[in-house]
C-alpha cells in the first residue's frame, strides 16, 4: 500500500496563518502538520523556511530535537506504550513485549501495511491507571497482555475508509 503523500498546501498555509507566521511557533506548526499527515512531509519544509523566515537547519534541528515530530511517514494508528515509572513498575515491559509480538514489529517501527506505528512514550499523565497505552488520541488503562492485544485487534477490525 505504498503511496506518496499528497500535501494540501492550503491546509499548511492555514496552520501557519493560525500562528500569524510567527517563527517562535515553528514547533507547534510542525506538530499540527504531524496531526494531519502523521509526520512532517519533506515538501512542506521549504514552505516553512519561506513563510516563517527561519533557516532550513533550524527546521531540521527542531524536528530532530523534539520527540513529537517525525520526518518519516508513520502508520494510520500510532500506538504509544507508556514506559513511565508508574507504568514500568506495573509491568509496562510485558505490554510492550505483547504488542511487539502481536504487530510483528519492534518499537519505533511501522507495520508494512502502514496501519500501525509502535512507539514508547514516557508518561502521558494517566499514571494511576497504569499500565496504559494510547492509540492516536484515545487512552486505554489498566491493561494486561490480553487486554492490550484486544485493543489492537479492535483497530484491525475497523473499516479503513475513516480519515486518519
Amino acid at each position: 500500500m505504498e503511496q506518496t503523500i499528497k500535501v494540501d498546501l492550503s491546509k499548511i498555509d492555514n496552520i501557519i496563518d493560525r500562528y500569524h507566521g510567527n517563527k517562535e511557533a515553528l514547533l507547534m506548526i510542525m506538530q499540527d502538520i504531524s496531526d494531519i499527515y502523521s509526520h512532517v512531509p519533506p515538501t512542506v519544509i521549504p514552505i516553512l523556511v519561506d513563510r516563517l523566515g527561519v533557516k532550513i537547519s533550524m527546521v531540521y534541528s527542531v524536528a530532530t530535537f523534539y520527540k513529537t515530530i517525525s520526518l518519516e511517514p508513520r502508520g494510520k494508528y500510532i500506538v504509544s506504550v507508556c514506559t513511565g515509572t508508574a507504568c514500568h513498575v506495573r509491568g509496562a515491559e510485558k505490554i510492550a513485549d505483547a504488542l511487539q509480538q502481536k504487530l510483528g514489529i519492534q518499537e519505533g517501527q511501522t507495520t508494512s501495511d502502514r496501519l500501525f506505528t509502535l512507539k514508547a512514550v514516557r508518561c502521558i499523565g494517566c499514571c494511576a491507571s497504569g499500565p496504559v497505552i494510547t492509540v492516536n488520541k484515545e487512552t486505554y488503562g489498566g491493561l494486561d497482555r490480553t487486554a492490550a492485544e484486544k485493543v489492537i485487534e479492535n483497530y484491525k477490525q475497523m473499516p479503513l475508509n475513516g480519515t486518519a
Partner: protein
Amino acid sequence: MAILSNRESLEKFQDKLKSAQSHGKKKLVSLCAGSGCGAYGTAKVHHALMEELTRQNLTEDVEVKLTGCHGFCEKGPIMVIHPQGIFYPQVKPEHMSEIVEKTIKNNELVQSLIFKDPVSKAKITLEHDIPFYKLQQRIIFGNNGLIDPTSIDDYITVDGYSAMAKTLFDMTPEKIIAEIKKSGLRGRGGGGFPTGIKWDTCRKHHGIRYVICNADEGDPGAYMDRSLLEGNPHSVIEGMIIGAIAIGSHDGYVYVRHEYPLAVTNLTIALDKCREYGLLGKNILGSGFDFDINISRGGGAFVCGESTALMASLEGSPGRPRAKYVHTVEKGFKDGPSNLNNVETWANVPVIINNGADWYAAIGTKHSKGTKIFSLVGKVVNTGLVEVPMGTSLRTIIFDIGGGIPKKKKFKAVQTGGPSGGCIPERFLDLGVDFDELSKVGSIMGSGGMIVMDQDTCMVDVARYFLDFLKEESCGQCNPCREGIKQMLEILTSICQGNGKEGDIEMLEELGVMIQRFSLCGLGTSAPNPVLTTILYFRDEYEAHIRDKKCPAGVCKPLFHYEIDPETCTGCRSCAKKCPQEAIAGDKKKPHSLDQSKCIKCGICYDTCKFDAIVIR
C-alpha cells in the same frame, strides 16, 4: 465591550451566581471527565445518564457537571451525587437507569455500586468518609470535583477572581510580594525556591518582563499539574494574573506538553472566556492594567522543564539549557526578566491572597508551608492524587491514605522526585515529607511523584530504568552528562544481564560523583541520584546480581527462573490454562511441573497462582 468592566460588576455577578446556585436545581451529579476517568469511559456514561434523565423528564431538576479529576482515578469513572455527597466508583452506562431511579429520584442507595474500602472491606456511602479523602486537606485540589473546567461562571461562583480583584484594587505590588513572602510559599516544580523572593528579584530588573507557567511536567509518574490545568485552569490563570500585577508584566506564557491535549483544550477555553469577561487583555476590570496569556505547546522533551531550556523552546529553538551565570529572572525569554513558576505554585497564589499569609503559613512545617499534591502511584492499593499538609509522613500517605500494598505483598521502597530523586527504604517511612526531610536521606520531594515499589520490583532494574530514561533525555551538549550517563547505563545493563563484576558498584559511585560535579544543568547534576540511593540502601541486591548471578525480585530475565513448589501447588490448573507456551503440565489436583526449556518468563503463571506455589529461584 467586556462583560465585567469594573470590580463592582464582578462582585454583583458573583452574588447573582451564588444566589442562583442556592435556589437552583436540587440535585447535582458530578461526573469526572478527567483524563484518567476518560480512559475508563466517562463519555459513554455521560451519554447514558443524559438519555435516562431525558427519558424520565428530569433534566430540569438535575444538574449534571462534567468535572476535572477528583484524585481517585484508579476507581474511575467516578460519580458523586450532591447534596448528600454519595460516591459511586467505576460507574458504567448500564448503571444509569438504576442510579436515576433510586438515588436521584428517591434518595435511595444502589447497594451494588457503593464503594467498598479495599482495606477494611467496609461499605462507605459518602465521599468524605472514604479514608482516601478523609485524611487529605484539599485546599488547592478540592474545587476540582465541584466545577466544570469549561465554565468560568463555576469558578467565579467559588469566589474565583476575587483574589485578583483584591490585588488589583486594594494592594500595591510591594504589598502582594510581601504577602507571598510571608506565606512561605516555595516553588512546587521541584527546586523549592521561595516564590516571593523570585517575584521581587524579577520586578527589580528592567525591561519587558514575562510571567511564565511551567506545565511541562516531564517527571514520569507524576500528573498533578495535568489534573490542575485540566480540572481548574482558572485557578492557574488567576495566580498568573496576580503574579503579573506584582511583577509588572503584561505578557504571560503557559508552556504545556503536547501530550496533554485535554489540558490544552480546557486552558484555551478558559483563556478565551477570560478575555470575553474582561479578566484578561486590556484594562482588566477597568483598573488600567493590561495582561494576556499565550499557550506554547512543548514537544515531549524532559529537559525543556529546566528554566533556560524552556525559554529557548518558547523562542522556537531546540530546548537546550545554558549556563546560569545570568539568571532568567534577569535575562530570560527574549532577554527580558522572566519569572517562571510551576502550575501548582501558581494555583496556590489566589488561595494565599484570599485567606491571608498567616492562615497559609499555619499549614505545614517550619520551612515548607502549605499543602502539596502527590501523585501516589505504582504498587499501592489506592492510586491517585493526594493533597496533604507538608510534613505528612510517608507512612500516612502510603498506608493510611493509599491503603498499603496490594495482594498482601511487602513494601520495598518509594521513589520520590522522579529521575532527579531517589528510592527511600522502609526504615524511613516515618519521615515527614517536605523540602528538607527527604533530602536528608538522599532523595528529594521534587514535584510530587511518589512511586511505590513492592517485593517484585528490582532496585537494580529501577536504577537502570532511570538512566535509560535520562540517556534519551540528555540534550547531549556537555560531556559528563552525555558520556557519563551512557557509561553508567552500560554497567547497569551488564549487571542486569548477569555480566556484572567486582568493582562495578565502586565504578558506578565514582562516575556518579563525576557527573554530579561537572554537568551544566540540573538534569545532569541530579542524574546519578536514583543509582546512588539504590546502592546506598539496596547494596545487597546489587551484590546478589553481581556475585550470585541472581535477581531476587524476579525481574532481570537472565538471572532467575520460575519453579513450581510441589508442597504448595494444589493442582488447580489455573496457570497451565493461561501459559502462552504450554510450558506447565500436570494432572488435576496433583502438583504441576514447569518445563524450563519452553518458558519465556512472561510471569503470567506467577501472577495467576493464588497459592504462591510459583516461586522465583
